[in-house]
């Protein structure tokens, strides 16, 4: 070793042996895993956040308008950058613009974009494109029984965490022989570990006791077997949380007979679709449950069951609860907790009044009446502006 390199080496080691770091030799580990602490996108331009808003189709635009109205009323420091995506366009320019806007702002609130499934496979689902391009790997839905909503089961409190980017939704299909179509379901170790880790971290943060992995490993031994193995691996690092697994068909049967037994559920894409929709139906339907899609760098909020509600569009009968609760999740994500809890409390107090229930809950109320009632509830709690 030359003198120069020895000096350079000692120079490199010196800070480790200085009196200021008495621990001695510390190995700096460069780990590839994702950040364990999340930081909200910084507020810019006078303490206000900019959030991408994609109205979507069906009831999306009217609900988006109500969200803007409510935020303005509450003086929430959020500005919406509206990006429209035309689902009738075959070119992908619109969705690419939307994706770029979300990359810019870091967060988005979106309505569902319709997919015409009679178009050829080259036209990919816009929602799916958004999720996979931005790598929004976790779709989280918190289904809770709400007071004032009559359902067949009570006391449900389930968090469903669904892998959002691979599995059956890889859109890899081909027709080798005419009349025989193969569709590929991809399960990878990295993504399975990632979603399992997300599930257990969420369970720990929220003080949940049990995580259930939903699978079909008795039939799809390699694919779902790999998913299950990854979940078990991650579970060993969280000894305070009970981990068990259940086959998807048994899960749906248990959900309709005794849903109270479930706590946190983690699963691959397709089963997640089924289970989260069943859970949403159990607590009162698509109008009540908000959904969130989290990635490493971005977050997109929408209604939990992702319906366009084409048949009830523009009739002022849609239930705004799901979208408004999604906007509360958005506010929590931006660390504007004061505004989030204020709006959430107002929504829950409105829901208990069955006279205001919209058609999906068996009532005759209108969307605008519900939103007005929420605004009245907020006004009655005191000054509109709140420090967070």
């Amino acid at each position, binding site marked *: 070793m030359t003198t120069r390199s020895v000096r350079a080496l000692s120079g490199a080691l010196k800070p480790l042996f200085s009196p200021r770091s008495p621990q001695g030799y510390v190995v700096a580990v460069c780990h590839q895993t994702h950040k364990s602490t999340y930081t909200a996108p910084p507020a810019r331009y006078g303490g206000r956040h900019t959030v991408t808003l994609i109205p979507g189709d069906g009831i999306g635009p009217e609900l988006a308008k109500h969200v803007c109205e409510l935020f303005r009323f509450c003086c929430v420091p959020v500005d919406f950058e509206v990006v429209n995506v035309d689902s009738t366009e075959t070119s992908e320019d619109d969705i690419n613009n939307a994706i770029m806007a979300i990359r810019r702002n870091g967060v988005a609130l979106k309505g569902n974009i319709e997919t015409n499934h009679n178009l050829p496979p080259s036209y990919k689902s816009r929602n799916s494109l958004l999720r996979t391009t931005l790598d929004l790997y976790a779709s989280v839905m918190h289904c809770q029984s709400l007071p004032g909503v009559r359902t067949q089961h009570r006391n449900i409190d389930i968090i469903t965490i669904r892998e959002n980017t691979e599995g059956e939704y890889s859109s890899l*299909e081909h027709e080798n022989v005419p009349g025989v179509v193969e569709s590929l379901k991809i399960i990878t170790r990295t993504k399975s570990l990632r979603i399992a880790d997300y599930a257990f971290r969420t369970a720990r943060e929220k003080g949940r006791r049990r995580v259930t992995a939903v699978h079909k490993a008795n039939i799809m031994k390699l694919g779902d077997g790999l998913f299950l193995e990854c979940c078990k691996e991650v579970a060993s690092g969280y000894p305070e949380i009970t981990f068990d697994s259940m086959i998807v068909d048994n899960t749906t049967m248990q959900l309709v*007979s005794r849903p109270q037994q479930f706590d946190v559920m983690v699963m691959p894409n397709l089963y997640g679709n089924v289970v989260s929709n069943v859970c949403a139906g159990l607590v009162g339907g698509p109008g009540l449950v908000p959904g969130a899609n989290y990635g490493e760098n971005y977050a997109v909020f929408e209604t939990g069951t992702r319906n366009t509600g084409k048949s009830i569009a523009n009739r002022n009968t849609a239930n705004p609860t799901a979208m408004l609760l999604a906007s509360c999740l958005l506010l929590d994500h931006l660390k504007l907790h004061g505004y989030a809890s204020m709006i959430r409390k107002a929504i829950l107090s409105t829901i208990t009044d069955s006279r205001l229930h919209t058609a999906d809950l068996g009532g005759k109320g209108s969307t605008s009446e519900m939103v007005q009632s929420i605004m009245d509830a907020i006004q009655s709690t005191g000054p509109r502006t709140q420090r967070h």
Partner: protein
Amino acid sequence: MFYMKAETLISVKTVTMIPGDGIGPEISAAVMKIFEAAKAPITWEERNVTAIKGPGGRWMIPPDAKESMDRSKIGLKGPLKTPIAAGHPSMNLLLRKTFDLYANVRPCVSIEGYKTPYTDVNLVTIRENTEGEYSGIEHMIVDGVVQSIKLITENASRRIAEYAFEYARNNKRTSVTAVHKANIMRMSDGLFLRKCREVAENYKDIKFTEMYLDTVCLNMVQDPTQFDVLVMPNLYGDILSDLCAGLIGGLGVTPSGNIGANGVAIFESVHGTAPDIAGMDLANPTALLLSAVMMLHHMGLHDHADKIQTACFDTIRDKKVLTKDLGGSAKCSEFTAEICRRVQDLD
């Protein structure tokens, strides 16, 4: 045995009975007793289907079982134990492959007297049983990346769609709904959907609708009365049929039938073998009995079917003699005897 009564012209039909494992033998015996009380024109041929290794090293069902099924064309099966590490595939899979049982039919009807949070359920799930996600074709492409192949073919889709519409017509059902996820799986579910649409053209008397899988699940748990006949590929069928079974009370009261090519049909109970209560006269024969009723309808013996079903439902509604899983404390033999008594009274 095959004889004809000149005055009534009712021919006795042979049915292959596969008792199965665990509680299988006792519930099969219960069903046979009830059929005898109802004077149903059925003779039973009991067979065992434990897999044996045939010539060429391939696993197959015993030849006498196959021969009996090919002759009688109708089978009634109890629960079979799925062996782990016995070297051979599950018996259910073997039966499915041997007789090309392409349609799994599960009528889910709310049972009066067995209360669940859902009332007035009356729907039928028809599931494609041979391909789809359960083709069993999986590869590990590189370490940590697994690819499972879902296979959808034109022929299988057309066959199941035709069966669904035929079933709807023969059982006087008003609508058939195809369940799919063609927005995501455009080519595969798209092909399935196209075939369903084509077949629907020939059955203009039956209403045909299409619905996404997630929408069906969402609506099913809120209001199951809006559904009639549902037809779908393998995986969705698996999940939905169990979901619907859960709505009416579970696998202990749900009948099921498998329809094969060449006119073969095997009706079965879909619950497990319940080894913990096997041989203790505690089992509930309702699932197997209702499957047997489905079988009688399939064979055209509607009067006997209705009689046995009424007796069974009356017993459950009365709540006096019920097995433990239905909320009572009676033994299997007592429950069976009660149904037999009612069947004879109905004569």
